[in-house]
């Protein structure tokens, strides 16, 4: 990511946006190529030399901010290491403590050379190693040992994404409008929101889509850009999903606020995050097909609801409808552990949500211990869930709900 001083944006009235570069522009592609080559050529050499060469390349042109941005992204992909056969700290200790009886070491006296030679002998190395090793651990003296290369086009794409992220550093609130979607996609999106420690508020209907507002815990006391960095790292995750519009409120550099808008229709920004968006469970379709064969009073349908649980969101896969009863939702878990399942149930409890079933496959359980003391709305199954099994579980759950709360004091 870029540092804030390398961020470049435009503002017209209430609107703002990152200053992108044309990732197809032959000039910039050449620059990206040149910079990568410079880095590559410095493998094995000192960081200070590399930085000097890069600064020379930047020269006195007025596009230096763009070049420095590209350089920052390249340096982030470099590894520098101390390369000296002796530990520099040990070299310093041995050498500097020898000075006491000769202090001060003045030029031309030959004393410096003598002390270095003594140190070399003591450490069992050549005098040159002492001289070079003395400060071999300084960042500028460390050597480039690894450079994770990328193509010129990739670098320019990464630069544009980084500019969009850098604008979000100053974001105080983000709003997303999400079209009606497959549950798995919406679920993935909410998992990403939670993973980046953002708090959401949801408004909307399954038929029209949802409006999601993102901010952080402190935002309720005063709107703050405290969560800007989290929004910035969330952006590449967002880019993986289809069907959204985003509007970010940005603290403008001069004064006031401006909005930065983006949608999943854009083609400029490419995410480099590797997240597999889970597909539909293939057997869910079959389940819906075979359900009418049971002749149940309950109808089964795919769900497009998003139910706000406060800290999380409940995105059911299926919904059971009944002429006289409240609808019941079913969520099929992906990978899970007894602990994650328990936390999930606590979230439902906190949100006072009761009419739901959770189905968890034994095959996707990621821990050796099997869960104990599960409530009746959890269904464990092997590989697939048959319509008959599901109906039985639903029946059991509904009848238990019907009974007066037996056993409570």
């Amino acid at each position, binding site marked *: 990511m870029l540092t804030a001083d390398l961020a470049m944006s435009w503002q017209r009235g209430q609107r703002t946006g990152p200053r992108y570069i044309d990732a197809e522009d032959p000039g910039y592609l050449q620059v990206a190529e040149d910079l990568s080559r410079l880095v590559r050529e410095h493998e094995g050499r000192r960081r200070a030399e590399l930085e000097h060469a890069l600064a020379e390349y930047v*020269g*006195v*042109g*007025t596009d*230096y*901010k763009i070049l420095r941005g590209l350089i920052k992204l390249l340096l982030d992909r470099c590894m520098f290491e101390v390369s000296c056969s002796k530990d520099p*700290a040990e070299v*310093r*200790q041995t*050498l*500097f*403590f*020898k*000075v*006491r009886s000769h*202090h*001060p*070491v*003045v*030029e031309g006296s030959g004393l*410096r050379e003598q*002390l270095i030679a003594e140190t070399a002998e003591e450490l069992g190395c050549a005098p040159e190693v002492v*001289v070079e090793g*003395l*400060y071999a651990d*300084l*960042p500028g003296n460390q050597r480039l040992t690894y450079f994770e290369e990328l193509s010129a086009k990739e670098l320019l794409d990464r630069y544009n994404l980084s500019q969009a992220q850098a604008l979000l550093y100053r974001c105080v609130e983000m709003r997303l409008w999400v079209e009606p979607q497959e549950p798995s996609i919406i679920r993935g999106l909410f998992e990403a929101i939670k993973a980046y*420690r953002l*708090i*959401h*508020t949801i408004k909307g209907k399954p038929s029209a889509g949802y409006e999601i507002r993102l901010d*952080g*815990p*402190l935002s*309720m*006391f005063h709107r*703050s*850009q*405290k969560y800007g960095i989290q929004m910035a790292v969330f952006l590449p995750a967002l880019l993986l999903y289809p069907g959204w519009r985003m509007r970010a409120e940005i603290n403008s550099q001069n004064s006031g606020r401006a909005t930065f808008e983006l949608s999943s229709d854009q083609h400029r920004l490419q995410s480099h995050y590797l997240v597999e968006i889970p597909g539909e469970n293939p057997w869910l379709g079959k389940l819906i097909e075979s359900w009418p064969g049971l002749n149940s009073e309950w109808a089964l349908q795919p769900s497009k609801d998003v139910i706000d649980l*406060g*800290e999380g969101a409940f995105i059911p896969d299926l919904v059971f409808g009944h002429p006289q009863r409240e609808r019941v939702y079913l969520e099929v878990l992906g990978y899970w552990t007894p602990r994650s399942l328990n936390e999930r149930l606590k979230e439902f409890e*906190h*949100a006072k949500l009761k009419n739901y079933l959770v189905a968890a496959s034994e095959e996707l359980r990621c821990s050796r211990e099997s869960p104990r003391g599960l409530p009746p709305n959890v269904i464990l199954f092997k590989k697939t869930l048959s319509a008959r099994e599901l109906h039985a579980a639903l029946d059991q759950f509904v009848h238990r709900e019907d009974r007066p709360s037996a056993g409570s*004091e």
Partner: protein
Amino acid sequence: MGEVNEVVLQFDSGTLLLDGADESTQVPSAFQWDRRVRRWRAPAYSYRQVVTELVRKHIPHQDQARKYYQFEFRTELTIEPRPYQRESITKWGQVGRRGVIILPTGAGKSLVAQMAIEQTGRSTLVVVPTIDLMNQWYDLLLSCFQAEVGLIGGGYFEVGAITVTTYASAFRFMERLGNQFGLLIFDECHHLPGSVYRYAAEMAIAPFRLGLTATPERADGNDRLLERLIGPIIYRREAQDLAGEYLADYSVVQINVQLSPEERATYERERTIFRRFIGEQGIDLSSLRGWQMFIAASARSEAGRRSMQAYRESKRIALGTDAKLRVLSKLLQRHRTDRVLIFTAENEMVYRISEQFLIPAITHETNIKERRQWLEAFNQGEILALATSKVLNEGINIPAASVAVVLSGSGSSREHIQRLGRILRKQPGKEAILYEVVTSGTAEERISQRRGSGDQFQGRRDEAPDAKWAERRLRNVDG
């Protein structure tokens, strides 16, 4: 269920949450209903008030937020506190250990902090503006407390009974660790209200807070925020109240050096490029606004970028001239038995000195253990000189140093020089001396002259003899 519902106070990402309470529950006034998560939420800094109200209103509660501990910090006060230091901390204790103390630079604010830590006896976090200051505080706290001292920042992440960190780090970790400190000390606390740093104070529950500064007033009027984040200003002494009585006794000698003909030629060439651009743009550099105009103009054209380069290059020459190293060599010979501290503005110069004279260097890049090792060796007399860049400053305990050499002191104020001078200790029968080495005929010299005018400090013995005198003294040393 005859039992009364107990509310549970939790720390959550720099805020407080109340579990087991719904919208209709009576809660302390700092709480607001957070519809997003359907719980009561309050800013973490209101913790003290929240707990007070819970107790006063007899609301059954369980405090799971607080994760800091009580300690008995035994301190070894190596220095007897001055009366004003004692007074200030007594006052702080009387107002419930929340407030800001204003003392002039060099008046020993760190000793005040040390007394506050001892008196409070809770897990403590000291927040400072820079990594350099963080290292200094670490040294200081290690030397005066028998306690585990932790560091967060500069590559370290260890929480101790006392922990030192920077504003920038605190801003980042307080969200997670804001419930682990009972006492917060903000050094140079005028940094707090501006920018995002204030979140560091907002996201912590610490009931006890101490702010230390020499200059609480900010141009943006944000200093009122200090009262909310730390507490009111409870004690104040100005420089003139203390000068004379408590200041160190030392003399300042200014030495002028000449650039070599080659350095002079390059210097003049670069200065001309720089000045021509300034002239063409009609920029007046004597004001702060002028400097900002130059920075903006320099980014807009190649000529501007070149002039910025020229400015940097000429500054580098004036600061790093070989002539300064020759003077240093003479001074080291002259004071061959004294403990000498060498200050420079740039790291590059420190390493040059270190490599040439085989003197240990301490910069912000020096790791903390090695830094301690060199300081101890210096105090023990196992090494006689230390080179450093802006790192060793006020507050550091170097009883052995009696001579300081400030090379390339550009941009440093008179006050800065004084501050460095206070590190020095007068040895029996000898005076402490601070040498300031300035390059003649450069912008640096003009800065130094400006620095010399208008001495607002009284009671200070300042002997700044002319350059010829200093040169003569040096020549005498050479014999």
